[in-house]
């Protein structure tokens, strides 16, 4: 006990210096903390890898070699980036508008279902129109999926956190049902949906890689989303509702209307992510279509601190991890269960670092950064 007190006393001047530095360089400090969190997680990961008798530095080096070290890996990383970015944008819009959407996973699946209906079954359209309509169908289905939780919230006041999460399971089972029945081609051995028509496929923008036009679309949409949030009256109202519901209501904001817009946007973005994943890489809906993009998007948004540049960078980081993990397995023979542990470590550390940054900015600035 006395030792602890001693530490506190001796560190107090050091602490003051650090706090002053942090106050003046909050942006730098938050980035520094995030980077340190990842390095820490990798360090523990390296320790675990060495315990199973594999050279940890060689294994970790495959994170880079697999994701940016060659042309194909580079393209694959940017392809994984796309659905993840949409998912984190979806979470960001919800967060800024004051509700918690953990249903991006389900909305991605709903979007994919909507898109496959147009992309696989509507024939004779020119490519540009076909792709556009398929994406719009994805947006519509994603928005409807989020809208169900929205209607329940507005009419009955039920908790959107629980409802969006429950709807994820419904979406997974709906996909299961559809690929076992209505959407399964009669001549297929496998339980997958019909393959989309060639006119609905998004073009590849980097040859010899899977990188498709959806990457460009995702960046344009990112700009659009932040324009909506920060440069339009609706966006202002959304953020106002998110910051203080009572104040917004007192100021005459149409709460129901704004909530609907926010829900449609958040669901639509996730649905768009699902549609573009379908049209750009997977071409058909299968059992494991989303791979947890909806959940990872939450971590990405938190780590990116709901800031456009932050989100793009943290999405990139998560994509590097996803792609690099495969390379670690192929190249260095790191067993799959251990990779899951390392991935979990990185996410835990990153989220803990977000918490730490929040606390720090509360202490030095007296408010959230």
């Amino acid at each position, binding site marked *: 006990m006395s030792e602890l007190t001693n530490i506190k006393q001796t560190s107090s001047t050091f602490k003051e210096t650090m706090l002053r530095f942090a106050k003046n360089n909050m942006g730098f400090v938050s980035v520094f903390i995030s980077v340190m969190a990842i390095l820490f997680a990798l360090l523990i990961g390296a320790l675990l890898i060495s315990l199973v008798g594999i050279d940890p530095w060689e294994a970790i080096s495959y994170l880079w070699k697999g994701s940016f070290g060659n042309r194909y890996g580079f393209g694959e990383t940017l392809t994984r980036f796309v659905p993840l970015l949409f998912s984190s944008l979806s979470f960001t819009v919800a967060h800024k508008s004051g509700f918690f959407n953990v249903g991006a996973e389900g909305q991605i699946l709903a979007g994919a279902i909507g898109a496959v209906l147009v992309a696989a079954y509507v024939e004779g359209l020119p490519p540009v129109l076909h792709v556009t309509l398929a994406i719009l169908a994805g947006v519509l289905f994603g928005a409807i999926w989020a809208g169900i939780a929205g209607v329940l919230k507005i009419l009955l006041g039920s908790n959107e956190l629980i409802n969006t999460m429950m709807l994820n399971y419904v979406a997974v089972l709906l996909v299961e049902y559809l690929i076992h029945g209505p959407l399964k081609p009669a001549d297929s051995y496998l339980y997958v949906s019909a393959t989309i028509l060639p006119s609905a496929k998004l073009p590849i923008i980097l040859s010899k890689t899977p990188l498709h036009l959806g990457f460009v679309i995702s960046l344009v949409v990112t700009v659009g989303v932040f324009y909506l949030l920060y440069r339009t009256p609706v966006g202002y109202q959304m953020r106002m509702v998110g910051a203080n519901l009572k104040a917004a209501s007192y100021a005459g904001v149409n709460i129901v209307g704004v909530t609907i817009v926010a829900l449609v946007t958040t669901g639509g973005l996730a649905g768009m992510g699902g549609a573009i994943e379908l049209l750009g890489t997977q071409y058909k809906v299968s059992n494991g279509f989303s791979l947890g993009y909806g959940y990872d998007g939450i971590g990405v948004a938190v780590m990116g601190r709901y800031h456009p540049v932050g989100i793009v960078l943290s999405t990139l980081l998560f994509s590097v991890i996803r792609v690099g993990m495969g390379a670690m397995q192929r190249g260095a*023979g790191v067993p799959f269960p251990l990779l899951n*542990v390392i991935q979990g470590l990185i996410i835990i550390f990153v989220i803990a670092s977000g918490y730490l940054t929040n606390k720090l900015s509360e202490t030095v600035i007296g408010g959230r950064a």
Partner: protein
Amino acid sequence: MKKLSVLLVIAVLVGMLAACAPAATPEPEEPTEAVPTQVAAEPTAVPPTAEPEKQMRVAVIFNTTIKDGGYAQDGYNALMALKDKYNLDVSYQESVNDATVKDVLRSYAAEGYDLVYAHELYFTDAVNEVAAEFPDVKFGVSGYKADYPNVVALDSTNWQGAYLAGVVAGLMTKTNKVAMVTVSQSPTAYRMVNAMYSGAQLYNPDAEIIHLFTGSFDDVVKGKEMATAAIAGGADIVYGNCGMGTAGVIEAAKDAGVYAIGSVVDRNPLAPELVLTSNILDNGRYLTLAVEGLINGDLEWGKTYVLGVKEGVEYLAPFNAAVPQDVIDKVELATQDMIDGKVETPANENYLWLLE
């Protein structure tokens, strides 16, 4: 103050993770010792058949873990045996899913492997799609089609083993009623049922098949229910080919004290007195045939091989003591006929006894 407490929480968290994590690792330790990736073989281990100057590089993709006690594990064991035998440079990726399989295939193809093999039926389409992009790389799949000249697909007949099991059942039944529990009424299942029927009829024209299905690959309870119902209906031999449900079928046989026949793996340990035999489906053989075919140059690429008894993919497990020598001899005759191509592929649209 607050900051310090947060730091403490994180320090504790780190400590906990560090303390817990090693406990979780011994499990994966075992396979990694065997992981041969990037490890140059010692010169003494080179068998005379292998060329010492250039190692053949083989990459394999599994959709579950290599410890699944089934399909992937068979493939993994075959891969390790091949690696030792031919001094291969091998790599594998496990737990690959539908959404990323194409990326994994492309990564391997781009890394210059001589053979990229997907040990999973569900990856058939993906393999064909990626093979079109890499005409210089050889692809293999445990699946049902090879659309390009650089792909080979290896599949089982899915009926020859059931035919032999039928021969055993036809000879061993006293009531002339044999129950068969499958997953569904798919064309594959019809063909299996008809194969068993033909096999049973070979030496016992009075033999009948009672076909039941569970609707699921992992419903043990349903498997048992179905078999129990069939036994109540007079069946004195139950054959299970319904995934995990097969264990339930054998359970039912144990309760009623009747004979059973297993499938896919040797089910004898479940009831050594009662399980007469099992029709084995050796999944690892696909990979062995593909790799050896590439080494020896006797595999035709661009072709789908449907393999059965002749190729050693399907066979009967060792019989238990209840099977008399007379029956074993007759099964051997039937096996020889099968190898000589004298057994017709059964119909798959309806039951044979209804079609006749």
